[in-house]
């Protein structure tokens, strides 16, 4: 072979190899089709500002827009993944005391009226319960989020200024949550419980409470070329087995909300084509120990309960191997603010179960509880399978250290009222927080007097540190302080965390760009980028 021929041949091979090794060109999204999916449960209403359940946020998100939102394509939510939505851009001024939003122009509500800064002011004055707010929410679960907002100004139709009492960089995250949509000023807020006038990618077509909610594409959506889908239909299916069967039979395109690993595997087993996507989630299984009820007022008893619960047994038992361990904040790498992994391994319940159970027995003896005079505890839990499985495991673990434990199932309707009134001894609870940020998690669940601080835990020092971390501008320093608070909470047994559950999305392969975030289940269902390859 001559040199010339060799060079030609080598060049050809090189080009061929280059072509073969190049990544396949990204598939161009296709327009059309209806996405059929099930919510966690029947949404009590379509008004995210008045509810504290994912069941409402899931469907309503498709209809609304927030000032900013989390990038659906980025798995971990953080300040860096916040993308503009109704606000084109924003800036912090006056050392993080004023947050100025410049709004998009030519945005229309679904009824054709123009969107302006007045709508933003109206919404967040109402949510923060401002004395001069134009409207009032019948129930206002997230008023606490906006306690630091002193005033909201709308100097012109396209500018909004949030004036804060003290710096709070995380406010932007709270505003980017699925729980923070902007409502129309011209529609009475009570009407938004059953209908939806938003600026989002989909318009409400039909709302049948307890049956289904159907949205159709909004042709005037402010992001040109979006959404790809013709519509989204949220079908309420109460029974888990029916959800799985409907997915397998092709009546749903996506399933998995509220499913555990076994459910996802069952679905896949019946239809091998289905894709199972497993991710971390910001929902934890936690133990509520009533700080106000003797003998749980005794720190030795609380610690004994905490030590008795072998976390590794929890992982393989009720969670079927699908959970991660951590403190009060979602652990890394999925979470932004979690304790370092090495420290997590040192938390109560994570060590040698034999030694920990022996220590628990010793503590109980010191507190005056013996085999002839055992500690009697009622483990309360919500009468839902996902709660009861873990609570039953807890009863068994507590009995192993000589605690005379019994299970009490509380029906959903009175679960939260009972917890709020501290009418229990020990309880198994699930906690999900909309945003992976200490300002949401700590204040809501651990602050003295917070209505969702179900264990009655109260520490002035922790409250002070919470306020301190909230104002910190340096991320590294803030993380250090957030970890310090977490350590103290775990040492105090404020709300022992058993683990952080995994979440599942089980979908047909033709569903593309279906978003799933590792550190929140609340901020992903706008569906503006989802498309069907059919």
């Amino acid at each position, binding site marked *: 072979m001559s040199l010339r021929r060799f060079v030609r041949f080598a060049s050809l091979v090189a080009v061929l190899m280059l072509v073969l090794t190049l990544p396949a060109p990204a598939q161009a999204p296709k327009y059309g089709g209806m996405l059929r999916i099930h919510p966690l449960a029947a949404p009590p209403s379509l008004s995210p500002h008045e509810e504290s359940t994912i069941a409402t946020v899931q469907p309503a998100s498709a209809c609304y827009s927030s000032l900013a939102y989390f990038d659906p394509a980025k798995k971990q939510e953080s300040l860096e993944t916040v993308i503009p939505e109704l606000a084109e851009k924003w800036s912090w001024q006056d050392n993080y005391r004023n947050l100025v939003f410049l709004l998009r122009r030519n945005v229309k509500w679904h009824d054709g009226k123009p969107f302006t800064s007045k709508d933003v002011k109206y919404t967040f004055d109402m949510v923060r319960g401002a004395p001069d707010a134009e409207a009032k929410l019948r129930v206002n679960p997230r008023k606490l989020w906006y306690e630091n907002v002193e005033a909201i100004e709308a100097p012109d139709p396209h500018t909004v200024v949030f004036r804060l009492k003290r710096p709070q960089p995380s406010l932007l995250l709270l505003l980017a949550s699925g729980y923070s949509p902007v409502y129309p000023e011209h529609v009475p807020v009570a009407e938004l419980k059953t209908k939806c006038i938003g600026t989002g990618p989909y318009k409400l077509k039909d709302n049948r409470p307890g049956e289904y909610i159907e949205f159709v594409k909004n042709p005037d959506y402010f992001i040109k070329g979006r959404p790809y889908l013709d519509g989204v239909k949220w*079908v309420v299916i109460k029974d888990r087995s029916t959800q799985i069967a409907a997915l397998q039979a092709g009546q749903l395109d996506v399933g998995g909300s509220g499913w555990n690993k076994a459910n996802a595997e069952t679905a896949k087993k019946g239809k091998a084509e289905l894709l199972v996507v497993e991710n971390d989630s910001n929902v934890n299984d936690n133990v509520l120990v009533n700080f106000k009820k003797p003998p749980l007022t005794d720190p030795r008893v609380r610690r004994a309960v905490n030590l008795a619960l072998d976390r590794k047994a929890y992982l393989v038992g009720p969670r079927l191997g699908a959970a991660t361990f951590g403190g009060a904040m979602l652990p890394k790498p999925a979470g932004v603010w979690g304790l370092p992994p090495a420290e997590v391994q040192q938390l109560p319940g994570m060590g040698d179960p034999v030694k920990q159970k022996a220590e628990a027995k010793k503590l109980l003896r010191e507190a005056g509880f013996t085999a002839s005079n055992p500690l009697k505890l009622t483990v309360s839990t919500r009468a839902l399978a996902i709660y009861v499985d873990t609570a039953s495991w807890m009863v068994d673990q507590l009995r192993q250290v000589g605690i005379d434990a019994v299970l009490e199932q509380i029906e959903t*309707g009175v679960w939260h009222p009972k917890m709020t009134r501290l009418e229990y001894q020990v309880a198994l609870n699930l906690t999900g927080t909309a945003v992976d940020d200490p300002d949401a998690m700590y204040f*809501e669940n651990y602050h003295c007097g917070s209505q969702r601080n179900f264990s009655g835990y109260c520490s002035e020092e922790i409250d002070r540190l919470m306020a301190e971390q909230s104002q910190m501008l340096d991320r590294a320093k803030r993380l250090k302080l957030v970890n310090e608070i977490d350590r103290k909470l775990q040492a105090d047994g404020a709300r022992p965390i058993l683990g952080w559950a995994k979440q599942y999305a089980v979908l047909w392969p033709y569903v593309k760009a279906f978003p799933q975030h590792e550190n929140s289940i609340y901020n992903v269902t706008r569906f503006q980028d989802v498309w069907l390859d059919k």
Partner: protein
Amino acid sequence: MRGYIVKRLLIALVTLVGMSMVIFVLLRLAPGNIVDVLFESAGYVDQADKKQLERELGVDRPIAVQYARWVGELAQGDLGKSYRYDMPAWKIIKPRLPVTLELAVLALLFSILFGVPCGVVSAAQQNRPIDYALRVLSLAGLSMPSFWLGMVIILLFVRAVGWIPSVTYVSPFDDLRANLWQFIVPAMAVGYRSSALIMRITRSAMLEVLREDYIRTARAKGQGTRAVVWHHALKNAGLPVITLLGIEFAFLIGGLVVTETVFNLPGVARYLVDAIQFRDYPVVQNLTMFIAIVVVLANLAVDVVYAWVDPRIKYGQA
């Protein structure tokens, strides 16, 4: 007969008033009310707001006043407002009624069409292989809970043909065929249990009647077995079956919670359980009253049908 029906309707009215009191009081004896549920699950409780809402919904008033208000509204055809959904209760209840009624009627129809002939054949062929087979079939129907059977049917359908009945309700006015496909499977799952009961009752009543003198006379006069069994005997063995049908229909109206859940049918029973959980008083009260009315009317209908089937029964005569 007319006098009898009027008398029965008056008694029914008294029964319903009693029922309304029981429903009303029992609901309020359960711990927690809708305001607790709404506020405390939200995690933020402003006591002034809570009191305001209690006033708005009228749950702060004495029970007697609340009861009088409900009955007064009911008498005017006003079913009140669903506390949970913040919309007229009638708007929520109305679309659910045809779903449950259709399911109950189809299930009952299936149970009659399957149970009665099987019971007759079983009696006519007493102690023969077919009798044994049908008795096993009826025993299986009584032993298997309908929701379990429903779930097994769904799983079998998915596995075998990759299809299940639609999980969103299809109205018969929109697509009759799809509607029937959606309802036939759950109706059969529910109706199988009822048909097993009907089969057993029909069999025992038929066995009794087939030994009567007039049957022997009919046979002696040369009537064929078919005419004797299906015309003479079945008509006279029908009374206990009619009683059972009345009871079953009443049960089907309120007792389909699990079947409606498994087949994802948006019916009355499933919604009633949800409403109880959320202490949605207007919805629970009105739905329970609806079920009570159906039970009372079903019983009345049974008595009227008695007279029609058996000419010996004369109401309103001394």
